[in-house]
């Protein structure tokens, strides 16, 4: 049995009367792709916020790689090896695709209070950038301004940036959001190719993708974990069916 890389213990977060995370316990094992599904408002994105350190939980602990990271800053978490992608594409629009990835790659090196040398001419950074762009299939668009890229390409760029941080854990917040069927499939293949090499926590509404990618699935409803199990077990779980899948059609979610 693989050891857990990420442990969420009794996590609670509320905004006023609204509980967005409610006594949540989840373990993500090293090397697995762990999917998090649930209807809108189930508290998936706010959970990512808490894992990244953007939001402070009201109670509970988050353990990562043996460290208690509950009180750590975002920067420290990234240093320890957590990276995320955003549900709504969030890149540096005025920069080229290459610059975007250079920024991620140099973040991984962590000596950036360098005021002199020209960052864009740094051979290692350029090479690393190109490698990750190739990896996500954007190699040809390296010199395009991010603002000029199509939506699907931007999603790929997001992923390249997250990968360039060389994280131990990837938090993927709906990587397929807004993609065409074709783009979705390409992205799923890409993520599939990472399976086993990267630990991933995946939030996704595209159930085909989830069931193709996930090693385990946690179903989140109202901030609580309804069930955590292997995909086929989830598919046949009666509670899940009634509460969530039972509605039959998830496309509107």
């Amino acid at each position, binding site marked *: 049995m693989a050891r857990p890389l990420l442990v969420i213990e009794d996590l609670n977060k509320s905004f006023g009367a609204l509980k967005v995370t409610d006594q949540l316990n989840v373990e993500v094992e090293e090397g697995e792709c762990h999917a998090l599904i649930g209807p809108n408002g189930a508290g998936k994105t706010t959970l990512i916020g808490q894992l*990244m350190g*953007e939001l402070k939980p009201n109670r509970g602990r988050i353990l990562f790689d043996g460290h208690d990271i509950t009180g750590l*800053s*975002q*920067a420290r*978490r*990234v*240093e320890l090896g957590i*990276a*995320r992608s*955003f549900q709504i594409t*969030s*890149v*540096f*629009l*005025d*920069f*080229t695709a290459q*610059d975007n990835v*250079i*920024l*991620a790659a*140099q*973040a991984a090196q*962590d000596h*950036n*209070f*360098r*005021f*002199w*040398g*020209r*960052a*864009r001419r*740094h051979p290692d950074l350029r090479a690393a950038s190109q490698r990750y762009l190739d990896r996500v299939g954007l190699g040809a668009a390296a010199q395009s301004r991010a603002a000029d890229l199509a939506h699907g390409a931007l999603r790929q760029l997001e992923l390249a*940036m997250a990968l360039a*941080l060389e994280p131990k854990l990837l938090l993927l917040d709906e990587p397929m959001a807004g993609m065409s069927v074709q783009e979705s499939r390409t992205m799923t293949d890409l993520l599939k190719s990472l399976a086993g090499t990267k630990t991933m926590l995946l939030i996704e509404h595209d159930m085909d993708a989830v069931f193709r990618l996930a090693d385990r699935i946690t179903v989140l409803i109202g901030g609580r974990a309804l069930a955590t199990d292997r995909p086929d077990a989830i598919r046949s779980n009666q509670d899940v069916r009634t509460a969530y899948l039972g509605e039959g059609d998830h496309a509107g979610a």
Partner: protein
Amino acid sequence: MTFWPPSRPTLIVLIGAVLLLLLPPIAEALRQPFVISVATRVVILALVTVSLDLLIGFGGMVSLGHAAFFGAGAYATALLTQLAAAGKPLVWGWVPPVEGLAVWTIAIVVAALFGLVIGALALRTSGFNFIMITLAFAQMVLFLASLRELGGDDGLRIPVRNTVVGFSIESQTALYYVSLVALALYLFLCDRIVHSRFGLVLQAIAQNPRRAHALGYRVYSYRLVTFVIGAAGAGLAGALIANHARYVSPDLLMWTRSAEIMIMVILGGKGTLFGAVLGAAVLLLLEEFLIGLTEHWQVILGPILLVVVLTARRGLFGLLAGSRGGGGGHG
């Protein structure tokens, strides 16, 4: 990037540099020594404009309190030089030297310290509140400058100019070239910074702070360091303006001065550094021209500036240079 043939922006910078270098002899030849005095002001204000462009154009920090650092540098220079001229000690029997390299270094450090304290507090906010809190801190510094001990509203006279490595800069031309060298050095420093790793991160933060956070960058530290570098540049400009006018007064720190510097940034084109020089020159010369035209010159200047803000979004440098060379700040 190849150096020859030069790109259009490089060419513009080169032509500008040559013009600035040749200006004093030309002014002498035309028997217009007053021009050198005006040009010195232009160069000094260009320096403070460049420092604000670093904050606004690259760091996305719209500070409406930049005059505070300009004033801090000027007052530090004035006080030290007054003591130096009178042979009086500052503290512990230490009499400040008249030497500019020493006095100005202190002025830069003083401005940078103000920048550190104000930046550390102000950078907790962003957007509109950042604009206002920088203004508020500048007003507090303005109050310090209005203290009776610092000459109050009457300001401080400076009996002599500083020396530079022992040479006198009493002549207008000497001060002009010293200011020009200071501007060139600071421009070079800023140009290196914005293209460095640090600069890339800084510009990334200006575009999308949340993403920069998620990449693990300590956004606050990058901004604060930049804020301090900008304050230091303004402090150097302040030291020079104190020498130029041989006089400092709280007017140097008025919020309208901060706004004027901001206008120079926009006029030249934010995020272009060299454009800041152009912005300072054009605004000051325009003022000089309009003052000669009518007593009510501001009634003409206002609408001109309004049109500039509304139309020339990339500023004069963008207009001249065509496409922007290298990555600039957020547009």
